[in-house]
């Protein structure tokens, strides 16, 4: 029982990270109805940025904040420069652009920082502060996820800009008619998503270590999480993230072994898409033919 509880808590901790990245995916999906395959690499690039700041002697939390800002601008620039031209293109063109982005970010990072694996510091103390079941980094990661979620909720619920962004996502034509600059709202959405992804990257890097391919598996779990929760529902994505994290850890520890952990994500993704494409909390999509 104790081992089980331990796995569940560890699962919640990694689940928080999946939840953050899933949240980033959902942000972009809501705004543009696209699934960003490069989300993981964008997060990885931001994490490298944080690493170089910390390596240059900057204390952790200022570096953290600066990285979030950097990731935000990275997202905005990518949307404006690279995604904009293919906004109304066929799906294949968009997917190809995402893949191109993934490949470019991956190789540029490898080029600048080399492919050797690096350690990344955790801001939380080494000795457990939340009891013996959970390391303080795990507890901290859960906390950070919840704070991010709360901030997003407050932003979208109580600020005019958040309202404008929701309007732009829900009904672009009407939003434009009342004077909202829809294009910029999309870019802001991308920026926010990239910033959230950056947080996820910095939380996961102390666990998986820093290398250009570190986000591959994490992105897959995040896809699974977003789909389980319903890809157009932010709260669902967070729920999905925690669920996937716990499932992955518990199944990996007791049922199928650690090697097949990634297969959990694969089965979840295909299972949800086939059986219930809207996930637990998503809107059922009806298209008129």
């Amino acid at each position, binding site marked *: 029982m104790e081992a089980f509880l331990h796995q569940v808590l560890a699962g919640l901790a990694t689940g928080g990270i999946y939840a953050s990245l899933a949240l980033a995916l959902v942000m972009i999906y809501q705004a543009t109805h696209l699934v960003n395959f490069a989300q993981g690499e964008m997060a990885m690039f931001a994490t490298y940025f944080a690493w170089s700041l910390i390596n240059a002697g900057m204390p952790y939390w200022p570096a953290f904040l600066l990285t979030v800002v950097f990731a935000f601008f990275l997202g905005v620039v990518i949307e404006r420069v690279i995604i904009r031209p293919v906004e109304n293109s066929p799906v294949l063109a968009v997917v190809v652009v995402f893949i191109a982005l993934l490949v470019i970010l991956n*190789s540029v990072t490898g080029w600048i920082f080399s492919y050797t694996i690096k350690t990344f510091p955790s801001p939380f103390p080494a000795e457990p502060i939340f009891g013996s079941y959970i390391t303080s980094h795990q507890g901290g990661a859960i906390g950070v996820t919840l704070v991010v979620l709360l901030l997003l909720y407050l932003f979208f619920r109580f600020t005019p800009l958040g309202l404008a962004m929701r309007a732009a996502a829900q009904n672009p034509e009407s939003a434009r008619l009342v004077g909202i600059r829809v294009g910029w709202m999309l870019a802001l959405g991308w920026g926010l998503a990239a910033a959230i992804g950056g947080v996820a990257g910095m939380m996961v890097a102390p666990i998986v270590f820093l290398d250009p391919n570190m986000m591959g598996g994490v992105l*897959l779990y995040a896809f699974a999480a977003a789909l389980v929760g319903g890809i157009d529902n932010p709260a669902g994505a967070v729920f999905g993230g925690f669920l996937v994290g716990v499932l992955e850890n518990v199944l990996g520890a007791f049922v199928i072994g650690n*090697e097949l952990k990634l*297969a959990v994500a694969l089965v979840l993704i295909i299972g949800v898409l086939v059986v219930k494409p809207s996930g637990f909390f998503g809107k059922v999509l009806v298209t008129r033919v």
Partner: protein
Amino acid sequence: MSRRQLILIAIVLLAACVLPFVVSSYRTFQLTMVLVYSIALLGLNMLTGYNGQISLGHGAFYAIGAYSAAILMDQFGWPYWATIPVAAAVCLVAGFLFGLPALRLEGLYLALATFALAVSLPALLKYHHLESWTGGVQGIVILKPEPPFDLPIDADQWLYFFTLAITVLMFWLGWNILRGRMGRAMTAIRDQHIAAEAMGIHTAMVKSMTFGISAMYTGVAGALGAITIQFVAPDSFNIFVSIVFLVGIVIGGLASISGAIYGALFIQFVPNIADAISKAAPWAIFGIFLLGFVYLMPMGVAGAVRMAVARLTRKAQNQSKS
């Protein structure tokens, strides 16, 4: 097929037959890989280019083909040539089965599902209960086939001609499929699936069959690739293999048979040149070319060649008139 096209194909084939005698054995090996890739790209192009189903996971079928060949040779002592049809059959079935749930997925979601397949495959290949067959992380080493009947060529050249024969067969087959009833049904579904259904096309059947055939092509390529490289290991079939195939069809030209060859030349030789700059350079170049082609030349190299030929012949005709 027009006479000019036939002559062109004859010249290309003749050149392909002469090449291994004038270049080094390493170059022959590379050319063999070009043929292998061209088969895989033709398969992916049938699915993505002609049928409009996006697959980011064809590396998985390539791996299944490669492992089928390697396991049959390593565990059961099969001769290399006999493994190709088996790899084809295994991948046909695997592709068809994966195509069934894929029917419910469109566009982006299919891309997602296949992406997940490709990312998780290396982990499945490392699974320790399969280790006695797959060799786990270590992979399987295969012996290089020797030329039969005391032919006066070396092993590399023999493998090249063997691959060339299969490539020609697969392209002939592909050309027939795409020109015939099946191919028209594929493009009809891509362009207007409701209209296609109204015309009496069994959409579900054609789509999953296309998935199967496409996987079969990729599986044959995988088997040939494994025999050529003489080695399979889980980590050589990561997500980037699937991405390379995507790069190949986008740059070669979507929905074009000759595009598979241009794409194969690109993905084989460009990394070779770019490697000289940096280990990361080939991928940066792949990415930049992908972006460049999507924005500027969505028809790929094949489309550009077609346009250039059309322009030149028009010019020639105008001159002969005046």
